[in-house]
């Protein structure tokens, strides 16, 4: 099926900044026409039903290939992306071997081609050789080979001097450096957000200050480097605390070339889930789940172990506010699939990470339903926001919106069609989702990438 006829649906074009009732036609994979409906034709079409948006762009996913193919492969990762409505995925370089030289990039591009998936695979190269933090990776060669920027994600760029040099060196390459902000001296052995829940459960705390001091360090360095070197760009990924977002907000208003993203799980979930609560961040208070009877299930579920950790409702609401006011440029999934062997263990021994690319839309829509984001802003943070971080380095450069005459790259989802997250409903090999058994809205009906069907919901 490379034809699609959608009449009387809700269209969202984040490039034009417009949304409303419309019709859309795809013929032979090409977006032949899309039309806004006016007046009586538009009557009865609202944004609670079938919605069409440009395909989503994920700045942050772990596809585990090469080296950890039992957790995920490029093929299963791209299938999961398509199921989640994503048509462009940026893979993180913390594979084995590390993506710190062009050969590894070629290998994953070969795997993507072999998968037959039309989803666009992009990749970050490592900042340092082996992500060990000591010497710069071959940044220029990686840029020539097509990486979209550099990151040692999984760990911060430990040395401030290396970060400074990486920012400066990558500026003329036109690429950003992506940092995972964490001061490791504050997080040794950390298991959960340093707060009330961790205190009660006896988990080692991961303080907000460990992230915020790293963000402050990065911004201070950026402030100096950008005075001397034109074109420097810093992107901070998976920010999780109110304080971090405040720092970025101030840096942006001071004109620093910084962008950032937040994850769906930090928008919607809190550390209360580790205690056994199962309510979204905006429904949680500050008193903790024990005193208001919010405990629904057993505590310590290893699927909730993630880095940075799930924070408090105050932090989650700050993340939502940051998406709303565009302090956060993008919502990125930090999709981190793991095998059962690595996850079905004691909480403190479980691998960090949530398999999240297929539940991202559902969590974001839950926040929209609760009134914490507009639909348009949520879609922008999944499309034009990340596209701007990538600059021109996607095949959709300049065409992230719904553009007539171009190969269709879009997602069709039904906001009111709820689905239950089950292991066998996830295309990812990583079944490590804390949302297993939970119902989410916005079931994806069709994902088209580069004019081809990447995902189509099975008939009921």
């Amino acid at each position, binding site marked *: 099926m490379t034809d699609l006829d959608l009449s009387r649906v809700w269209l969202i074009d984040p490039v034009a900044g417009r949304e409303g009732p419309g019709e859309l036609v795809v013929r032979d994979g090409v977006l032949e026409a899309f039309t806004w409906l006016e007046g009586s034709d538009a009557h009865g079409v609202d944004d609670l039903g079938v919605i069409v948006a440009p395909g989503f762009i994920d700045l942050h996913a772990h596809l585990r290939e090469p080296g950890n193919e039992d957790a995920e492969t490029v093929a299963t990762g791209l299938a999961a992306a398509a199921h989640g409505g994503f048509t462009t995925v940026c893979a993180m370089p913390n594979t084995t071997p590390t993506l710190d030289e062009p050969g590894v990039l070629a290998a994953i591009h070969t795997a993507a081609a072999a998968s037959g998936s039309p989803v666009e695979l992009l990749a970050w190269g490592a900042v340092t050789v082996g992500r060990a933090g000591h010497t710069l990776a071959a940044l220029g060669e990686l840029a020539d080979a097509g990486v979209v920027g550099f990151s040692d994600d999984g760990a911060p760029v430990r040395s401030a001097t290396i970060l400074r040099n990486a920012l400066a060196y990558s500026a003329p390459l036109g690429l950003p450096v992506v940092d995972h902000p964490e001061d490791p001296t504050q997080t040794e052995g950390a*298991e959960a957000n*340093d*707060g*009330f829940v*961790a*205190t*009660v*459960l*006896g*988990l*080692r*705390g991961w303080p907000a200050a460990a992230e915020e001091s790293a963000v402050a360090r990065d911004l201070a360095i950026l402030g100096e480097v950008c005075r001397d070197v034109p074109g420097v760009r810093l992107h901070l990924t998976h920010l999780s605390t109110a304080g971090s977002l405040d720092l970025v907000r101030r840096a942006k208003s001071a004109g620093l070339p910084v962008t950032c993203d937040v994850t769906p799980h930090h928008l919607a979930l809190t550390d209360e889930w580790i205690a056994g609560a199962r309510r979204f961040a905006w429904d949680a208070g500050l*008193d*903790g789940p*024990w*005193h208001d009877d919010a405990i629904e299930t*057993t*505590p*310590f579920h*290893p699927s909730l172990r993630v880095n940075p950790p799930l924070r408090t409702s105050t932090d989650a609401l700050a993340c939502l506010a940051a998406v709303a006011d565009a302090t956060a440029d993008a919502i990125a999934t930090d999709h981190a699939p793991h095998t059962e*062997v690595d996850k*079905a*263990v*004691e*909480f*403190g*021994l479980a691998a960090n990470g949530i398999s999240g690319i297929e539940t991202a839309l559902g969590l974001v829509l839950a926040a929209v339903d609760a009134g914490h984001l507009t639909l348009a802003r949520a879609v922008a943070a999944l499309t034009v926001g990340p596209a701007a971080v990538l600059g021109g380095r996607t095949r959709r450069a300049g065409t992230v919106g719904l553009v007539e005459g171009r190969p269709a790259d879009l997602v069709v989802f039904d906001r009111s069609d709820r689905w239950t997250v089950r292991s066998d409903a996830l295309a990812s090999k990583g079944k490590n989702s804390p949302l297993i058994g939970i119902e989410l809205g916005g079931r994806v009906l069709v994902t088209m990438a580069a004019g081809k069907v990447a995902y189509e919901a099975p008939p009921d």
Partner: protein
Amino acid sequence: MTDVIDGRAEAAELAVPSVDVAPGTQPVGWRHRHLLDVDGLSIADLDLVMRTADAMREVLARPIAKVPALRGRNVTILFYEASTRTRVSFEVAAKNLSAEVVNIAASTSSVTKGESLVDTVRTVEALGAQMLVMRHSVSGAPYLAAEVFGGSVLNGGDGWHAHPTQALLDLYTMRSRLGSVEGRKVVILGDVLHSRVARSNIWTLTAAGADLWLCGPPTLLRGFEAWAGRGAAAGRRFHVTSSIDQALRDADVVMALRIQKERMASGLLPSLREYAARYGLTASRLAHAKPGALVMHPGPMNEGVEIAPDVAAGAQSVITDQVTNGVAIRMALLYLLAGVSPT
């Protein structure tokens, strides 16, 4: 000490469960299959455990301290952390109830190469375990075991999280001596941050109406002020202080916690010498508490560090009571859980 006798007598008047019964008889009023934490125990649950422990104390006073309640049951004791007193206490308790006891000392060091906890639990179950007593260095580990184990899991201490039988034996010891802990000033002194004993005692003592005080240097109380604040908001009497004078003034019970040498390496304390000087429970400090205030310690003690030897062995010390009561409490819990455990 008349109040002690009265307290015991009052408890005994309530329906003391009969333990001189055939195996398989159901205790009335207990509904928990596992004992993983104490946060889910109601006041009625606490009372039932205490009354059952009273009955077990009577058994322990007999010439032959043995009843057939758990005859034919397999109680497997799986300890991932070194322990002598808790393991032996569980073993004695299970044997007093005529259970078959299997002891396994396991190692967490081989988690990546060796057998996972889930596999180990499935293996011990296949070998006949019906009740699993478990100690583990990672907080929450018994919840994972309970997910896969077909019988009952008793948490014998997990990481910093919980030590339910210790908190219950502590409450039992206090009630035995004081009658009730309602309104009594109870001080937990020392390394609260790393203490599962402190965390479990917070739940049980505040639920039972004690006026609870946590005391230690701020580095070892990190995060507990927030817990105390929320507890107070919920009507519980719960305070945190680094002033040992304020904590000990008119206290009814002082429980000292073990200080481990690792705390110096991680920069939480300058030295054991300095800790002993500032927070050690000495006779002169104890004099600020109420006359006859109880001195407790969950063991093992570092005498001369968190507690002076003369205080540990003094007239106010109930530390050996804690050990004896520990057997009674563990007998009570094994008995209660066996009643709801699938066989």
